[in-house]
């Protein structure tokens, strides 16, 4: 297929994906805003005021980047996981499979949809947070690059999950048993420097640590980990998951009998 035709196909998938989450905005855009407001009120305001400073800033300021990141992660993941799985389930994935759409285009379209949703949610949550703490931005482009790489990574992971999923339960198991623990242990609510040395080392195996810290560095200029090391790790994870998603879809795993 020519470049122009591939772009048309890509645009089609991407717009369809965006239309989907915008159509059900009450399920996709409102909940993260509510959850985050609760986090700000409870952890930030009520409990945070007793904790004092962390990393040289107020506790509230400290957790804002991590909370934004948390909503980016869950939204990117669940958007692609549920959209792709329901396309498998309703079999409308076949509309793409019979057409000369390349595997690359399908991945970019779905991941693009997940990234779009998580960026919208990120903006919503950031706006909500600005009611609680003044918005402080140290390294704007680092924030942008980190959030896009993170959203892409979890969108890809959601896609891989959906490829293997056989029932709707299968797309909630990974978020519950893997994603949530990783984000909670990913330095959203604490600086890993508070941990004993052993757990600090273990924490470095958690990819979320890198995203949260790079992101936090972008906002408040404080990080447990060098921001460029963090970006490097993110890029690496993205490549691995892209290769995995491509190879699965190209072979038709879970979508062609």
């Amino acid at each position, binding site marked *: 297929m020519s470049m122009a035709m591939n772009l048309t196909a890509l*645009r*089609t998938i991407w717009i369809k994906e965006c239309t989907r989450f915008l159509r059900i905005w009450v399920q996709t855009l409102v909940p993260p805003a509510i959850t985050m407001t609760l986090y700000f009120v409870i952890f930030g305001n009520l409990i945070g005021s007793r904790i004092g400073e962390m990393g040289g800033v107020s506790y509230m300021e400290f957790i804002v980047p991590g909370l934004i990141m948390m909503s980016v992660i869950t939204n990117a993941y669940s958007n692609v996981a549920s959209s792709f799985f329901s396309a498998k389930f309703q079999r*409308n994935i076949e509309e793409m499979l019979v057409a000369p759409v390349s595997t690359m285009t399908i991945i970019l379209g779905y991941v693009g949809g997940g990234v779009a949703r998580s960026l919208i949610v990120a903006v919503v949550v950031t706006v909500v947070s600005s009611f609680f703490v003044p918005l402080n931005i140290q390294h704007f482009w680092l924030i942008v690059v980190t959030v896009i790489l993170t959203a892409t990574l979890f969108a890809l992971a959601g896609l891989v999950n959906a490829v293997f999923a056989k029932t709707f339960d299968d797309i909630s198991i990974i978020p519950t048993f893997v994603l949530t623990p990783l984000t909670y242990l990913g330095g959203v609510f604490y600086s890993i420097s508070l941990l004993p040395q052993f757990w600090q080392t273990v924490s470095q195996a958690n990819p979320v640590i890198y995203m949260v810290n790079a992101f936090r560095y972008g906002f408040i200029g404080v990080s447990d980990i060098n921001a460029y090391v963090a970006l490097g790790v993110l890029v690496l994870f993205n490549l691995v998951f892209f290769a995995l998603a491509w190879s699965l879809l190209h072979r*038709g795993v879970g979508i*062609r009998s």
Partner: protein
Amino acid sequence: MTKALEIKSLRKVYRGGLEALKGLDLTVNEGDFYALLGPNGAGKSTTIGIISSLVNKTEGEVKVFGYDLDTQLADVKRQIGLVPQEFNFNQFETVEQIVVNQAGYYGVPRKLAKERAQKYLTQLGLWDKRNDRARTLSGGMKRRLMIARALLHEPKLLILDEPTAGVDIELRRSMWDYLTLINSQGITIILTTHYLEEAETLCRNIGIIDKGRIIENTSMKLLLSKLNVETFVFDLEPYSNSPTMTGFTMRELDNHTLEVDVPKERGLNNVFEQLTAQNMKVLSMRNKANRLEELFVDLVEQGRNQKESV
């Protein structure tokens, strides 16, 4: 003559070991209207799935308008429009979204896709429904939606897997008219059906598939000529004394309807002569429609016996 479809020694073994196709050969010429018939589980949908790349083949060769499925997949896909056996659109999208998006996947620019959407949705009587969500359509409308969707990239080969299942007579006829029309405009059509009347009305050539093999591949005319006995139903003016018929098998259904089996070589004249001689007035006469079904059952049985004796 250009071949729209050429399948050689096609085999499919599903995961779990079921061999759905056991070396299937099939050729369909450009411009043909071809019926693929066969009992449930014969392998029709599997064959169609492989042609339209929804199912991976195990072995064999498939060419569509000369393009090879293995090496020229994108070209193959562009030639084909598929109307699958089961509804496979997103129930929450609107009619227009579904067809316009499908065109997008084929790289048709959005503006052109919208023009075509209007054209084909209008032709299929769905234009008024364009903003309705697919799940609110009736079964017949859903079938027509899938036909419109398959046509939006203007394929040369349209494949329909039981397009009229669950569609009422009136709608079925209008679908037949539509398919006949687009076939006359040059689109090659392959369809599967369990309604033999449908195959007989529409199709020029026919393949019968059973247990993963083609057991008959012939023209409709030849197939029908294999039938040497036809059954006719005579509608007579009500009579009080039953007629007699020498040389023909005859059944009386009631006091004004007769069924007579007429061997091809004997013709109908003698039947009329006998009826006239007995002062029976023939009001109307029709051909009993199920003869093809009988033939079909015969063929499938013959095929099975042959295979067992091999």
